[in-house]
């Protein structure tokens, strides 16, 4: 690890930035220095505070402490318009063009110089773009290019690119990287946020690493540095694995769920997996690598554009979530608000999926319902003092309810999407135990987690998805965070920093 010298003439200088949301501390002490002509990668694992930091840099949020200076001028600004005036222009992860306006109108809206915009659009590989095209009619990849061209046309001092290349095909990625590098060579600065080490190695000069809201490192990019960066992102967490589950012998027999070459949208390109009865299969991926789409397809919320899904050896296609449910696949979504009727009681929420099964001629047999619901509540140790409305429960207890309802129903295949996000450690343990019990009773569980340590605690095996493809399959015994992190950043493929 080579500490890069902090340039005295830093173009952008953010120091001691802190931000808390209620009791949650998102940033404790984040700093970032960008010298003229430098491309600095801003890196951090999920939950490190990266997105909060970006929002503060670009004026969407105000920091509780610390300052952001551009060319020595205080630019702790109140709005994106203010950040732009001070010379920092961001290209956000999500397109920020107005869908119901034409390209030309969008340019007018942001006072973008049209000639320079045209120049950049052509330069970036979209020469025949119509100015009167409606934004909503354009593909996502084109929108990303337009966003970038719009930012370049303003000729910013500091360009901030947040996951710029995530939705782009390879030829456009190359153009974007070349253009960004040329910007830096012309003396401008770039803050580059990406999960892809190849891109960072190709164009960045330095990397600033965030962990738990702190800037923990600032290193020059050189061959072999990715190991050091991965270590910085993980910190001491590597050794803190509390209890490793006893890994069970390999599973045999016909898979409950078999997926081959699944693709949809721009993000999910080619995922195959086998999930057997009694198995908990972890899914590990950085944000936006296609895991959302994978779960949506398996839950029947979205159609696949390619690939096959087999349940117990029979090929299936789901047109509707009800199809997936009747094939025995049930989703516990990441956002609890999507799964629960917040205003209704715990009892009703648990009973809801039962209705279709218990109701005979529309009458719900109350005794059967009560028995199953009570069993589920007891099993999960849900705090029933707050039985009234689900929204009054803590997040952990709400999550337990979302799982409990499927236990009461008798689940075959459970799709858990990051079930322990934002939940205290005790409830997490209960959920791991619950998932284990379910599997031991013959359920098959697909378990996406944004916390790498959970793979060893809850899973038998894990697949790692990077850029829409499965890049690694790891047994839980070998799934230490180092290996998972490397795989999640695509480093198991030959994509590291060339030596």
């Amino acid at each position, binding site marked *: 690890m080579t500490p890069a010298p902090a340039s005295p003439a830093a173009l952008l200088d953010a120091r001691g930035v802190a931000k808390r949301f209620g009791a949650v501390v998102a940033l404790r002490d984040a700093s970032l220095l960008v010298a003229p002509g430098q491309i600095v990668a801003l890196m951090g694992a999920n939950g490190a505070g990266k997105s909060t930091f970006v929002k503060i840099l670009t004026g969407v949020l105000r920091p509780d402490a610390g300052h952001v200076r551009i060319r020595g001028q205080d630019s702790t600004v109140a*709005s*994106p318009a203010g950040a732009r005036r001070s010379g920092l222009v961001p290209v956000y992860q999500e*397109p920020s063009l*107005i*869908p*119901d*306006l034409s390209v030309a109108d969008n340019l007018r*809206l942001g*006072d973008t110089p049209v000639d320079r915009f045209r120049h950049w659009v052509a330069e970036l590989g979209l020469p025949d773009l119509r100015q009167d095209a409606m934004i909503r009619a354009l593909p996502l990849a084109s929108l990303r290019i337009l966003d970038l061209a719009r930012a370049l046309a303003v000729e910013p001092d500091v360009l901030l690119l947040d996951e710029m290349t995530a939705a782009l095909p390879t030829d456009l990625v190359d153009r974007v990287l070349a253009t960004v590098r040329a910007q830096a060579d012309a003396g401008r600065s770039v803050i580059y946020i990406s999960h892809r080490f190849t891109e960072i190695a190709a164009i960045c000069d330095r990397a600033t690493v965030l962990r738990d809201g702190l800037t923990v490192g600032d290193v020059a990019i050189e061959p072999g540095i990715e190991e050091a960066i991965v270590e910085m992102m993980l910190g001491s967490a590597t050794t803190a694995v509390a209890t490793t589950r006893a890994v069970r012998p390999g599973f045999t027999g016909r898979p409950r769920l078999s997926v081959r070459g699944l693709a949809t949208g721009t993000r999910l390109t080619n995922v195959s997996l086998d999930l057997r009865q009694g198995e908990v299969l972890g899914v590990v991926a950085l944000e936006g690598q296609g895991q959302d789409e994978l779960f949506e397809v398996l839950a029947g919320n979205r159609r696949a554009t390619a690939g096959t899904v087999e349940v117990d050896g029979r090929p299936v296609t789901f047109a509707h979530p009800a199809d997936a449910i009747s094939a025995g696949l049930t989703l516990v979504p990441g956002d609890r608000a999507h799964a629960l009727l917040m205003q209704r009681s715990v009892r009703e929420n648990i009973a809801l999926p039962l209705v279709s099964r218990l109701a005979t001629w529309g009458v719900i047999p109350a005794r059967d319902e009560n028995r199953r619901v009570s069993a589920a509540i007891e099993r999960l140790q849900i705090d029933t003092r707050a039985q009234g409305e689900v929204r009054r429960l803590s997040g952990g207890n709400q999550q337990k309810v979302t799982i409990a309802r499927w236990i009461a129903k008798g689940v075959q295949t459970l799709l858990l999407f990051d079930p322990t996000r934002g939940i205290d450690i005790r409830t997490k343990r209960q959920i791991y135990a619950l998932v284990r019990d379910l599997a031991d009773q013959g359920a098959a569980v697909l378990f996406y987690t944004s916390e790498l340590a959970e793979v060893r605690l809850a899973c038998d095996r894990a697949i790692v998805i990077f850029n829409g493809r499965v890049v690694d399959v790891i047994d839980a015994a070998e799934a230490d965070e180092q290996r998972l992190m490397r795989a999640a950043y695509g480093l198991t493929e030959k994509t590291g920093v060339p030596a």
Partner: protein
Amino acid sequence: MMRLLQLNAWTAGLAALLVLLLLATKLIQPDFGGSGLDSLARSALPFALATVGMAVVVIAGGIDLSVAAMMAVASVTAAVLMDGASDGQAVFAVIAVLLVGLAMGTLNGALIVVTRVPDIVVTLAMLFVWQGVALLILNAPGGGAAPWLRALAVGGVTIPGLPPALTDWLPRGVVFLAVVVALVWLPVRRSKLGLMLYAIGSDPQAAFRSGVPVGLVRVAAYALCGLFAALGGLTVTMATGIGEPIPGPYLLASVAAVVLGGVVLGGGRGTILGPILAVFILRIVRLDLTLLSVDPNVAAIVEGLIMVAVVMFGAVLATRGRKA
């Protein structure tokens, strides 16, 4: 040209429907002519202005339930100020009424932006407030209106030097509407404010990131709605000669016309012309049903069904268009 037609297909369809309905009216009632058009225009005028105000707010992604109540405030303010006033004083009265409208709308918008209470709740509350204000100003229909003002919207158009027969079929109400909308809306639409109104309705997040002052533009949308409501209230007083403190049936009618006129309730899409055409269509349908001596209760059912049918038809066309 084809592209322009495609973009405005909905408006063009409404215009065609309007012409068909006018022809149908002529068939039902062969002596339907200048005076018929005049009374149609006069009755449609307050509806049309309420609808334009509503359309602006809906395009910007909001809704204003207080539009009819603001019209009542404007109507009584105009009638009280003009009661016994000279022609010259009446000019100031008109200006005052328009300022009152702007102020009411600005207050609506500011409350929504500052308190962050949903627009539908704020404007529902303000509906009651403005109703009360209107009754405080004038607790029963009364007051007066300047004759020159009344003449602006009543009767046919006459141009000195041209034979009256050539122009007097065109109702002054329609000309008044066209002039008012052109004077207020066209400059807005062509300015950056117009783009911003569509932008915050289409995607407030993206608009914010594009540097649009979302809160201010939202206030501007409600202010414009207040201004059009004031104009609408003014036309109520112009048509009847007195102020009317009880709000007319303009609120739901304006929402209906906005939807029928092709403005998406979620915001961001639609024109002002479409809803205006829709107002006239709904008025003519009502007129035709009356001429056919259909039971008024049945007529209301028919109007509702027509709306559902037209909007569904439009949705089907839009889905087809997307697939093609």
